[in-house]
């Protein structure tokens, strides 16, 4: 065991250039994946911020008694899709209109009677902010006898819905393509390392080394290269993020589990890449 680890580490010292090259190649391949991941993370964050504004407003018939409203609020809040339901009385609506619609302040001042209806504003939980769920909630609200009308900006929600689906689909395809490219590049890099030691492998087999004995240092080496490359890739991503965040726009960086996932992905590809390269090579000697 100690010999295996020593052999694996010796390879870095014996071929420092090739080892450094492998680590850098892995790092850059994963850096591209990571940059794409950063875009995806930030896009998702931006979309979810927009989606938070998805709100359904149920306008109430004039003269709805407050006990009815209180009961209805409880009922609505128990909907699985709903995160909060708030009652806005006629007076509150008018006060808000006065505050928000500054241009109409004069008109609003002169009113003799408040024309604004009371309403219930319903916020939808994340995960239910798509057109189907939102209209289902709206339909249920329409079912209350004291509800006059329900509005939720159907067009807007549908567009947001499509945008989220598009972002998800494109993200999946492009992400998978980048990951595949990274796998191929890393696999080739490791294959080079195996070929560079083909002579050594042949000699090991001649003196009676088992396949497992030959394979293990390569697997360990591949995993170490993947780990270093992954770490370097996260570092490069951090650098890129830092520059963008400081000079262009405020952006999010990966959470710790996401960063670890990139390093883990690198390690895994390194391990699998060397397993397949050595395996294929051993079949031929």
């Amino acid at each position, binding site marked *: 065991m100690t*010999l295996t680890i020593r052999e694996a580490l010796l390879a870095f010292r014996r071929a420092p250039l090739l080892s450094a090259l492998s680590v850098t190649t892995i790092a850059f391949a994963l850096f591209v994946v990571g940059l794409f991941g950063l875009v995806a993370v930030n896009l998702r964050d931006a979309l979810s911020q927009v989606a938070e504004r998805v709100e359904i407003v149920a306008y109430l018939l004039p003269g709805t008694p407050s006990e009815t409203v209180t009961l209805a609020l409880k009922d609505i809040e128990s909907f699985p899709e709903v995160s909060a339901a708030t009652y806005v009385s006629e007076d509150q609506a008018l006060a808000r209109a006065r505050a928000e619609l500054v241009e109409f302040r004069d008109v609003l001042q002169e009113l003799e009677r408040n024309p604004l209806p009371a309403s219930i504003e319903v916020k939808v939980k994340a995960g239910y902010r798509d057109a189907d769920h939102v209209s289902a909630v709206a339909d249920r609200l329409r079912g209350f006898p004291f509800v006059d009308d329900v509005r939720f900006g159907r067009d807007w929600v549908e567009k947001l819905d499509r945008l989220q689906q598009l972002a998800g689909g494109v993200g999946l395809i492009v992400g998978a393509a980048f990951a595949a490219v990274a796998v191929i590049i890393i696999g080739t890099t490791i294959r080079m390392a195996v070929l560079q030691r083909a*002579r050594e492998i042949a*000699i*090991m087999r001649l*003196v*009676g080394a088992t396949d497992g004995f030959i394979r293990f240092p390569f697997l360990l080496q591949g995993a170490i290269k993947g780990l270093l490359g992954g770490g370097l890739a996260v570092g490069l991503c951090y650098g890129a993020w830092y520059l963008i965040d400081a000079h262009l726009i405020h952006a999010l960086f990966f959470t710790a589990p996401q960063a670890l996932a990139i390093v883990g992905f690198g390690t895994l590809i390194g391990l699998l890449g060397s397993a397949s390269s050595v395996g294929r090579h051993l079949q031929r000697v």
Partner: protein
Amino acid sequence: MIKFTNVFKAFPKGGLALKDVSFHVAKGEFAFLTGHSGAGKSTVLKLVYAAEQPTSGEVRVSGFAVAELSRREIPRLRRRLGIVFQDFRLLEDRTAEENVAFALEVTGARRAAIPARVMRVLTQVGLAAKAQAYPHELSGGEQQRVAIARALVNEPTVLLADEPTGNLDERATRGVFQLLRDINASGTAVVMATHDLDLVRQAPHRVLELQEGALVYDSAVDEPKGEGGAAS
């Protein structure tokens, strides 16, 4: 020890490399394998160390039936053999000592015992003083001695040598050949493939001669032949 029975070996593109080869090399014997390039000498040796499998016939080496060996079992066979090549096959980035130790390490020998065993074989081949030298710092003859030390360090029952003197000048050739004979004298069987007929004539050893894949002469069985025979 090594027994070939009606062995045929065909390569997918190279035609028939061995045709109906049968012979037996006993424990402790020294046998020359002679013949022109392409006569099948290397193929015979490859069958012995299980780098190739017979197309038909049986190859038995120190209790193993080569045709039935699984990939897992091949290392076990090879640990009982020592193999030496014309091109030495040393690792250039390791010293003589490390090259020899390497053969022990890969077979999982006890770490503490390795240095002493390495020095013993290096002494046996006369290279103890150059243990720290890298292959490129050694002459051809010395490199071949390192390779022989590496082959010996696992205490094999058979030493296979494929043209071990093919890259050496006359003086180095004599030295290496004498070393192989010494090794044989201490009980290890040696099978040496060579086309150096001078060397073959010098020594009173068993001779197996191959011609286009067929065993045309075996000094243990045949009378010395007038023509084509190695003893001529």
